[in-house]
Structure formats: structure tokens, C-alpha cells
């Protein structure tokens, strides 16, 4: 990086991309991303692309070449529980390490935080949120709720216009990430072409395969310091395969909920024979019966009434 100090930089100056990469500490974040997020290949590829672009831009700047600040507003589309929020958090970290945003915090908002309740309430409310997000990432969850075509007097439109304006004018102050379910986001972008064209990166989050969900379950259990008995492992695989076919399947979130319920059942199983002495191992192990008791295994599959499978027992 000594060549950087020479001014003006000659045509034959050498630049070391690898050194820049090491200096930015982005590798740590990407590694963490790889370790904590299972699957999501297209997402990871795109993140790596963005990283390379920003790194090359850093070097271009050092070489005295023109660097148009790239527009990094993104939209994350995907089914529930595919890791949109988690990736957004990591994204803020990565952009911070690359020096693209100054602070690297993430402000997560929904429609309620942006749209006001009466005339003249929306603009200050939206600006307030934007001010808070400056220097970081503004994550708008379920962004399609901002636009309500059935009510033409809805204030959501005003929030969208202010957002558009800020996304254009304060490009180096904040990055906006819109997130939501695929079909509804598509409809949202179709009715707001201005929004769609200002977002450079449309990233689709694919559903997880059952293999990936097993890996996710494994990670979650490790974090919670539990483990599955060999029997429980195959039962959980069966559970996931059955659950995937049912409506309102929420990917990793469903798995988390299933594990939480298994913990509940494990606790009551242990409590039922509380006179026996327990080993540390007993406290950690989830048995097949803890998972088997789930309603997912009841035949025939019961009619689903809950939303997103949150209340499934």
C-alpha cells in the first residue's frame, strides 16, 4: 500500500487487492456469515460481489480514478424464516467494515414507524426515522404494507415519496433495505416503479431444503447447549419433512419453534420423574419422544388454522 502515498499516482503503480481485503476485516464477517447461515448460496454470492466492488472502488479511489458511489439500496425477498433480518444485520456490519456506511448500525422499522395517523404527520415521522438510520442501514420489514392501493388517501404513499427522495439525495449517508414476502414485494415494486429502479440489488432468499433445515437445527441446538439423541435426530428429520408439506411453513422459524416446544416437553418429561437423579447429559439431551409428541405427527394432518405455524403444538 506504499504506492498510495505517492502523489500523483503513476500509471505503473501497483495495488494489492489482497492487502486491502485483509485490512478491511471483511473476511471475518464473511466467515461468520458462512458459519452462522446455512445455505442461501445466491445471497452469499451477491454479498461477495458487493464486497469485491467496494474493495475495488477503494483501490480506484487510491489510484485517483473516478468512483461513483455505488447505489447499495437492496430488497430482500423471500418466504418467512429465510434469514432476511439476520442477513441485513450482517450487511450493515460488512458495509461498515468496507467503509461504505460510517456507523454500521441497523434501524429496523415497519409501516407503523414511518406512516403517520393524520395529515402532516407522516413526513416528520419518516424523516425522524431516516435521521436515526443515517450512517447505517435502514431495514424496512414488510415494506409492501407502505403502499395500500385500496385506499387512495393512505399516507403510505407520502412515506414512499420521502424515502425515494432521501435514497437519492443521501446515498452516502444511509443504505435502505426493503424486505418482504416475494409475491407481495413484486406487486409493491410493480406499482412503485420509481422504488424498483432505485434499488440496485434485488436479492431473493430461497427456501431451505430439509438438509439445510437439519443443519440449522443443529446450530440452534449448539447455541442453546442441547443435543439430540440419535433417535431424536431421525425423528426431527421426519418432522421437518412433514412440516414442510403443511401450510404456513416458516423455514428456520418453524424449526426454532419446534425446538422450543421440544425443550418444553423435555422439561416436563424430566419433571415427571423428578425423584430420579439426573446427569448433566439428561439435562442436555432431547429424546425422540419429545419431538414425536408434536401434532405434526398426528394422522391425518390436522387442519391448519394458525398463522405462520407459530402456535403449532
Amino acid at each position, binding site marked *: 500500500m506504499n504506492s498510495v502515498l505517492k502523489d500523483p499516482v503513476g500509471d505503473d503503480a501497483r495495488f494489492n487487492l489482497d492487502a486491502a481485503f485483509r485490512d478491511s476485516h471483511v473476511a471475518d464477517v464473511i466467515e461468520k456469515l458462512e458459519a452462522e447461515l446455512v445455505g442461501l448460496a445466491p445471497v452469499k454470492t451477491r454479498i461477495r460481489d458487493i464486497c469485491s466492488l467496494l474493495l475495488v472502488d477503494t483501490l480506484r479511489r487510491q489510484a485517483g480514478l473516478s468512483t461513483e458511489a455505488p447505489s447499495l439500496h437492496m430488497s430482500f425477498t423471500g418466504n418467512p424464516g429465510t434469514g432476511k433480518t439476520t442477513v441485513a444485520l450482517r450487511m450493515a456490519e460488512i458495509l461498515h467494515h468496507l467503509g461504505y456506511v*460510517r*456507523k454500521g*448500525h441497523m434501524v429496523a422499522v415497519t409501516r407503523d414507524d414511518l406512516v403517520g395517523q393524520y395529515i402532516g404527520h407522516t413526513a416528520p415521522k419518516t424523516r425522524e426515522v*431516516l*435521521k*436515526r438510520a*443515517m*450512517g*447505517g442501514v435502514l431495514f424496512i420489514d414488510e415494506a409492501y404494507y407502505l403502499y395500500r392501493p385500496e385506499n387512495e388517501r393512505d399516507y403510505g404513499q407520502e412515506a414512499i415519496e420521502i424515502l425515494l427522495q432521501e435514497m437519492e439525495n*443521501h446515498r452516502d*449517508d444511509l443504505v435502505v433495505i426493503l424486505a418482504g414476502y416475494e409475491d407481495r414485494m413484486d406487486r409493491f415494486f410493480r406499482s412503485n416503479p420509481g422504488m424498483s429502479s432505485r434499488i440496485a440489488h434485488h436479492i431473493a432468499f430461497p427456501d431451505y431444503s430439509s438438509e439445510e433445515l437439519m443443519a440449522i437445527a443443529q446450530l440452534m441446538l449448539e447455541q442453546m447447549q442441547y443435543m439430540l439423541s440419535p433417535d431424536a435426530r431421525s425423528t426431527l428429520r421426519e418432522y421437518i419433512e412433514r412440516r414442510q408439506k403443511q401450510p404456513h411453513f416458516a423455514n428456520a422459524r418453524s424449526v426454532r419453534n419446534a425446538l422450543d416446544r421440544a425443550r418444553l416437553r423435555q422439561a416436563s418429561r424430566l419433571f415427571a420423574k423428578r425423584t430420579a437423579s439426573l446427569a448433566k447429559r439428561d439435562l442436555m439431551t432431547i429424546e425422540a419422544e419429545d419431538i414425536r409428541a408434536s401434532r405434526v405427527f398426528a394422522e391425518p394432518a390436522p387442519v391448519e388454522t394458525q398463522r405462520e405455524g407459530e402456535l403449532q403444538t
Partner: protein
Amino acid sequence: MRLTQGTFSFLPDLTDAQISSQIEYCLQRGWALSVEYTEDPHPRNTYWEMYGIPMFDLKDAAGILREVQLCRKTFPNRYIKVNAFDSTRGVESLRLSFLVARPQEEPGFELLREAGPGRQVRYALRSYATRRPEGHRY
């Protein structure tokens, strides 16, 4: 007459970049910032008008600097200051306060003498600007 009030009062007017780094310093300390403006430059006038409410959970100077710029645009010919409040003692106490904008012309202050009983003289200070009603001073 150039008004000198608050921190950095004897320095030349701060540039936006300097204001930004001062704000950054305040944010690093966890202080909340607010923008205020006034037409009454009297040194004892502590009650300036608030331009919006104080900003508590901001992370970056850009948001506050933008508020300053908006305030300058709305009130191009007033005194504008940035205040920083520290809440570590349980109350929002003022830690830093500096001018970020001033009117184009500052007429200065007049010294008033009032004859009291006997040969007593009482002094008062009054800005020439405050002779006119509010909204027409600068």
C-alpha cells in the same frame, strides 16, 4: 458587532465539516443534541426557540447537520446554535453549546443608563435589533 456566545465563541465561524466533527464528538460521548434559534441575542436570553425536539437516539452526525441546514434554510437571518445535553447525572445538563449561524448584519448592543435615587446609576444592555418587533429584527 460580532456576537460571541457559547463554546468556540472567539474562533472564526465553524465550517460545516468542523460542526460535523464537533457533533460527532458529542455523539461519541452519548450526549443528545438539539438545534435552537433566536432573534434576541441578549447574553442572558437562555430561552431560545427549539427547532424540533432534541435528538436522542441518533448515531451519526449527518442527521443533526441536516437539521442545522434545514433550520438555516427556514430562518436564514437568525442566530442558530447547537446544544449538547449530558444525561449521566440523571438530568439533561448542557455540556456544549455553540453558534452555527448568525444574521448577516449584527447591529450590536446599546448601553442604557438609568438614573436611580441619589446619584445611583443602573446599567442595562440592549440589542439594537430588539427595538423592532419579532420577525422584523434582522
